[in-house]
């Protein structure tokens, strides 16, 4: 069917096997999430709400909490840097590498580093930057984009991966997942040892102690801060929480929401360079706090999106994501969270992404699963309203104008006339009505018989006869 919305077109043209992979993966994660939460907690919803409040409170008092985290980190021997933009962050990373004469960097999974396109930047500047998360590694080999924030290659199947490995010289074609994993293991071990700098993200930072909580299932983040002497943690300013104990709430929810695990396999707490007695690990630790539009978001009607802990649950449950896949969203963060966040992170390029908030039936499933209770549908609506106020065509394409309709609906006499006139709809084929919205409806859907005003008449007669 014809469509004016790029995500709808992407969904229409998506190869069925990709839709199937995305659907199966999403459903499995959704089910596991639900099982693990309901098995563990009497009232999981209360904990989601609590987590939402903790994050919201922190954001509303971010200067104090971020300030305290920085003070603690510095006290623990880490060097703290401030990056206003993605470009600033990239430059800081390059400068750190140069300061230790490094040309090789190994990275654990970090959405922020995707957001600022770090790999490309380092490569351009003559440095090697290797992804060590298995999924991200495959994405990098393919020069592809992750399509999910937790499971980046949910859009690929084993055959495609086997081809990629063969092309990259990682052995003959073999599509056994175990073999694929072992080959990545042995290739990446050498990369860990060779790299001079390890870069990680950070899932949470405690303002109380400066502790950075970092989770991975594969152990790649552990390797990134064991085998080399410099550690860079690149972290968005919104990752702060007030106290160590609050980490217990968020960690309890993060893994359950993301993969249905009680806890992620490796949950690490880092609050400084290695201790003297420890032979392995970084002697220098750099923490880069990244703003990149976040302070603007904080001051806007979209601030709640900064609570996000990147669990991916809203993607997994989202029917539009399931139909269209993550790549449809044209940005690092797909699904409902991406539909809210990507236009905002785009800054001045907001209009380019103003169609993303339209990719929702506003069913509210995303809010229902969000571990920090972000009112995603409300934020999507605010975007739609903003786009309407600013007259952004990309957002309104395909949506019928409501101006005339609102006059109709606020003028009872007109409304009643149209109830009579609507009868005409029964006599002409909808396919012949040259209104795009009607066409869009009628191609694969019929309308029920028009019965305008019938109830009103029935009710009046009934009152008369009483």
């Amino acid at each position: 069917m014809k469509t004016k919305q790029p995500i709808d077109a992407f969904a229409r043209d998506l190869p069925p096997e990709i839709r199937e992979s995305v659907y199966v993966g999403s459903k499995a994660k959704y089910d596991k999430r639900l099982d693990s939460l309901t098995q563990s907690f009497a009232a999981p919803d209360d904990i989601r709400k609590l987590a939402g409040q903790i994050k919201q409170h922190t954001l509303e008092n971010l200067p104090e909490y971020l300030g305290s985290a920085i003070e603690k980190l510095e006290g623990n021997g880490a060097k703290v840097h401030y990056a206003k933009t993605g470009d600033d962050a990239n430059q800081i990373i390059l400068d750190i590498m140069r300061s230790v004469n490094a040309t090789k960097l190994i990275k654990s999974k970090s959405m922020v580093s995707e957001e600022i396109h770090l790999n490309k930047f380092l490569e351009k500047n003559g440095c090697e930057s290797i992804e060590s998360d298995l999924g991200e590694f495959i994405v990098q080999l393919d020069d592809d984009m992750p399509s999910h924030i937790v499971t980046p290659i949910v859009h690929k199947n084993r055959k495609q991966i086997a081809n990629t490995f063969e092309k990259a010289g990682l052995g003959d074609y073999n599509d056994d997942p175990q073999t694929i994993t072992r080959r990545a293991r042995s290739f990446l071990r050498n990369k860990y040892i060779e790299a001079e700098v390890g870069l990680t993200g950070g899932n949470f930072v405690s303002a109380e102690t400066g502790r950075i909580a970092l989770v991975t299932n594969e152990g790649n983040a552990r390797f990134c801060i064991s085998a080399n002497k410099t550690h860079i943690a690149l972290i968005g300013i919104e990752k702060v929480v007030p106290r160590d104990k609050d980490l217990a709430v968020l960690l309890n929810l993060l893994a359950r929401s993301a993969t249905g695990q009680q806890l992620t396999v490796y949950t690490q707490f880092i609050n400084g360079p290695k201790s003297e007695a420890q032979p392995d690990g970084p002697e220098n630790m750099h923490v880069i706090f990244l703003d990149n539009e976040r302070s603007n978001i904080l001051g806007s009607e979209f601030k709640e999106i900064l609570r996000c802990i990147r669990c991916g649950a809203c993607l997994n449950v989202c029917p539009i994501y399931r139909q269209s896949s993550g790549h449809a969203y044209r940005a690092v963060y797909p699904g409902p969270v991406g539909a809210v966040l990507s236009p905002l992170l785009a800054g001045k390029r907001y209009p380019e992404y103003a169609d993303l908030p339209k990719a929702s039936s506003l069913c509210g499933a995303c809010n229902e699963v969000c571990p920090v209770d972000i009112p995603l549908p409300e934020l999507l609506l605010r975007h739609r309203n903003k786009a309407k106020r600013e007259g952004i065509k990309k957002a309104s394409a395909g949506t019928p104008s409501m101006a005339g309709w609102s006059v109709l609906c606020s003028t009872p006499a007109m409304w009643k006339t149209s109830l009579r006139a609507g009868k005409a709809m029964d006599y002409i084929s909808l396919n012949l009505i040259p209104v795009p919205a009607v066409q869009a409806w009628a191609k694969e859907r019929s309308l029920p018989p028009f019965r305008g005003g019938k109830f009103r008449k029935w009710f009046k007669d009934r009152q008369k006869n009483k």
Partner: protein
Amino acid sequence: MLATDRVTGTQVQLMMTCLCDTFFDSVAQATVEVLEHVGCTVEVPEAQTCCGQPAFNSGDWDSTRKVARHTCRTFDSSKPTILPSGSCSHMISHGYDLAFEKEDDLSTAQTFAKSSWELCDFLVNGLGIESWPGRFDAKISLHRSCHTRGTQTYQSAVKLLSSIEGVELIEFDESEQCCGFGGTFSVAYPNTSVSMGKLKIEKLTADKPDIVGAVDMACMMHLSGIANKQGRQFNKLHVSEILMKALRNAK
């Protein structure tokens, strides 16, 4: 919203919703009969049109307010207003808050919101009805209708329906998933919308129910519209119609 904050009583107004005004008169009729059965006196204000949701979801909040103000004027906030739709009542109880956020008449909208109820929610939480008399022999899969999330509607509907003799509510897969209607989404995203609808129909009818039930005719219009085009119609009923049929069977 807590039941105690809300306006209740047996002198009620029906907001039939624009869909029942144009297509589904039987649902509005059934709603009247159900309300009268439980002792309500029902008024149907003539000037009513629509809650304003289509404009709201499309982002046009000026138009939304125009319609919403008309609706607030049309209904008397001192009496309960009953809607046979989870979606429209959600619009009034939540959407208005957002659309009027920065407006001087926010409190007018909120006062009206406190008097508005979805039918099943009203029966159970407004009037304290726990079970429904009569008989209706059918296997029913009840679509959840997304806008009832976070409200009492779905569980109230389940409570009433499952108390009817002969009704068997069947479980189906992916009950949390949306039917794909979404108001203007259905025409702005026709491909996605229809694909979602097809999947929903598959799940709803997997166990061969006699009836597909809903608390909202918008979802139904979309789903049966698709099924119709595919030439595989299913029997559909709004909860009010099931309640009414059960009453008739008792007589």
